[in-house]
């Protein structure tokens, strides 16, 4: 139960942060990506603020032997670059530039029931299933 509450509250704060940051405004996101046009770099400060806090916290927190509610840290450890990382990230970037949404802001904006958001979220889920299908096919062929 505590795990559920802590996940809920963390995500709630996260979502509020996205809203205050302006990440939920697709026009602002595209403005940030519009380096050859009307460039609005202000969203860069979202990452600056987030990393400034989290980079320091990360070091302090992972000095502990365990998290507060669970027995171990589950942080990715891979350090290699591979085709999937590069291709997947690039494809994500294209979608982000096309729609002005990334996953978090789209979900936070869902309450507006704006058709673009709903269409995006449904399509995003379809894209997730598509990846799942592709990975399963890859397993069978390999």
């Amino acid at each position, binding site marked *: 139960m505590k795990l559920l509450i802590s996940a809920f509250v963390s995500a709630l704060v996260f979502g509020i942060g996205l809203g205050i940051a302006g990440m939920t405004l697709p026009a602002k996101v595209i403005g940030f990506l519009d*380096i050859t046009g009307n460039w609005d770099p202000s969203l860069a*400060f979202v*990452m600056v603020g987030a990393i400034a806090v989290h980079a320091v916290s990360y070091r302090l927190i992972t000095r502990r032997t365990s998290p507060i509610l669970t027995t171990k840290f589950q942080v990715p450890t891979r350090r290699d670059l591979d085709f999937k990382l590069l291709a*997947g990230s690039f494809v994500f970037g294209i979608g982000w530039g096309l729609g002005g949404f990334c996953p978090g802001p789209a*979900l936070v904006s869902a309450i507006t029931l704006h058709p*673009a958001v709903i269409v995006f979220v449904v399509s995003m889920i379809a894209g997730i299933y598509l990846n*799942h299908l592709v990975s399963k096919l890859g397993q069978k062929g390999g």
Partner: protein
Amino acid sequence: MDLGSLVQPLIGGILIGVSASMLLLLQGRVLGVSGIVGGVAIPKAGDTAWRVAALLGMLAAGGLLWLVAPETLNVTAEGPVWRYVIAGLLVGFGTQFGSGCTSGHGVCGISRLSPRSIVATLVFMAGGMITVALFRMLGGVP
């Protein structure tokens, strides 16, 4: 771009960083939205409940923002439906294939100096910027 317009992104970013630190400290997990959504769409036994809670947290954040600061959810997303279908598909597929998005790679990954995340972030930023630039070049209004 005046200094005042950087305050909100910075504060939003700080909240995002705080939320990621919360989840890490409490549960030892990375706050990566694409991982959360992917893990709900394709559930894994024993690893889904916290993701559902996080998803609900993001939706709740949307509700809260909608009530107290609806201007943060001003979705100015014009354009044909297909634009958001393709954007959603690419974001959904790409984030799974590439193992992360702006929160997982951009905030959490970079904070722990993960080479994978640093590269992923550069790549998806490039993908977004190229896409918007191309959109402009082809005469569209991004």
